[in-house]
């Protein structure tokens, strides 16, 4: 019969339409609350799984490649970075610039300046992978838009990277290393 295929298809869309409201009813008090999120994102759950973004946010996976951070040694308070520049050389687009300080601090080399140019970063993670001192890691930070591109906005200096290191890895161990 002509039109049977269309009706069959429409039954699928109708089913989806009904399921969306049914699954809303099932978690009635928590439609937009964060408690409902884990359940809503589960693969067996039917219906729409829109995340109400500004109100509720996804928790990023530990391996998520967000903005970079520089770690500080919690015992000495000195940056773990030695300014060796391996990260800068491993970067395919050259967004990292490192200058090593002429004088040692606490018996180790430290960077004098470290800039990361977010504007042309690929977020490929090769810098993090190549760091031999475990000083450079990704944060779960992803809301990185700014209104300008000068220093302090899209161009990150050492202080800002270290501040993020303090925020996301105060004990000197980043989330990705705690995974296991």
């Amino acid at each position, binding site marked *: 019969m002509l039109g049977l295929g269309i009706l069959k298809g429409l039954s699928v869309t109708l089913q989806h339409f009904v399921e969306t409201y049914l699954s809303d009813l099932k978690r009635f008090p928590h439609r937009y609350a964060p408690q409902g999120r884990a359940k809503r994102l589960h693969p067996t759950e039917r219906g729409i799984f829109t995340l109400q973004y500004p109100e509720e946010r996804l928790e990023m996976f530990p391996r998520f490649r967000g903005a970079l951070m520089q770690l500080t040694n919690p015992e000495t308070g000195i940056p773990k970075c030695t300014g060796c520049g391996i990260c800068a050389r491993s970067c395919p687009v050259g967004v990292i610039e490192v200058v090593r300080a002429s004088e040692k601090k606490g018996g180790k080399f430290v960077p004098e300046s470290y800039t990361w140019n977010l504007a042309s970063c*690929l977020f490929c993670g090769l810098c993090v992978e190549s760091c031999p001192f475990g000083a450079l890691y990704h944060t779960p930070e992803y809301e990185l838009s700014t209104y300008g591109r000068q220093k302090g906005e899209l161009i990150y200096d050492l202080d800002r990277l270290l501040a993020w290191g303090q925020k996301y890895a105060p004990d000197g161990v980043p989330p990705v290393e705690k995974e296991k």
Partner: protein
Amino acid sequence: MQRVETGLRTETITVNMGPQHPSTHGVFRMIVTLDGETIVDLEPVMGYLHRCQEKIGERNTYLQNIPYTDRLDYICSMSNNMAYVMAVEKLAQIEVPERAEYIRIIMVELTRIVNHAVAIGALLNDLGCFFTPMLYALEERERILDLFEMASGSRMMCNYMRFGGVRYDLPPGFMPELKSVVAALPAFIDEFERLLTENEIVLARCQNVGVLPPDMAIAYSCTGPLLRASGVNYDIRKVDSYSIYDRFDFDVVTETNCDVYDRYLVRIGEMRQSVRILEQALEQIPEGEVSVKLPRVFKPPEGDVYHRIESPKGELGFYLVSDGGTNPYRYKIRSPTFINLTVLPELCKGHKVADVVAILGSIDIVLGEVDR
């Protein structure tokens, strides 16, 4: 041009479709010569997204090229990674641990499902069925991209494979999640088929449109679902088996009517076969190492190598020439959609304007890969 039957004098007109046209899947232009609504000639214009990928590849070290391969065909970055990484492994003769091979197969087959779901959704978008099939496809894709993010740290630009293995082992909690996603996939494909396969509008728009005879498909070096929909049993996973595909039991899906509808059927069939491969891989995956230790400054020996894999869109090959240094002397990409696209004028001649978008959608192009 003189219309004999009416005696009226008519002219062909030339229409530019694109580069900013919603059905061209990116910046792609077609110069269409029309006689009324019928297509007399069509000339594809490519290169709007050209970004010197091959020249950049010569500047980068071997490792630095992996994130660039993500950006070729941004829907299936995992299979691009695999093709490039396997080419370099062939050049430097690196052995890959067993577990890493299985992880790669799992990722690549998930990518194939993502690609075909998106391709069918986009095809239906082009046909005018706005976003219902596309969103059902994206819903399933979202779950698979979550798996990619969990394993590699990024949803689309995965950058997960490395020479001699993969970047990290699978994270804790990955396997149960993967199992539930794979278990839910057949139901999703069934539902997709119920929605579309017998739909009379889809049949009317797709059947006998864009017929590509097998000999023409071979003459134009078409590969992938486009070739298999023309009845040619050619899948590189079978004919030139690489990695560990010889351990899995799966069929090559072919159809014989050579039209847009059959390309859709081939994609649905391949999604089912990918689920079969995934189920077998999940049972067989061993424990163990996932990467081999390579020197920090990686220098493969002198020589050249070509390696090809069956990417979701067709034969994806990398040709590398090494002079023994840290970066390739020549880095050439044989991208499937660029070569599949050359057959477009032949497919479109004699059809109506509205069929062009359907035919283009059925070829399944990604401009990042066409223009490189």
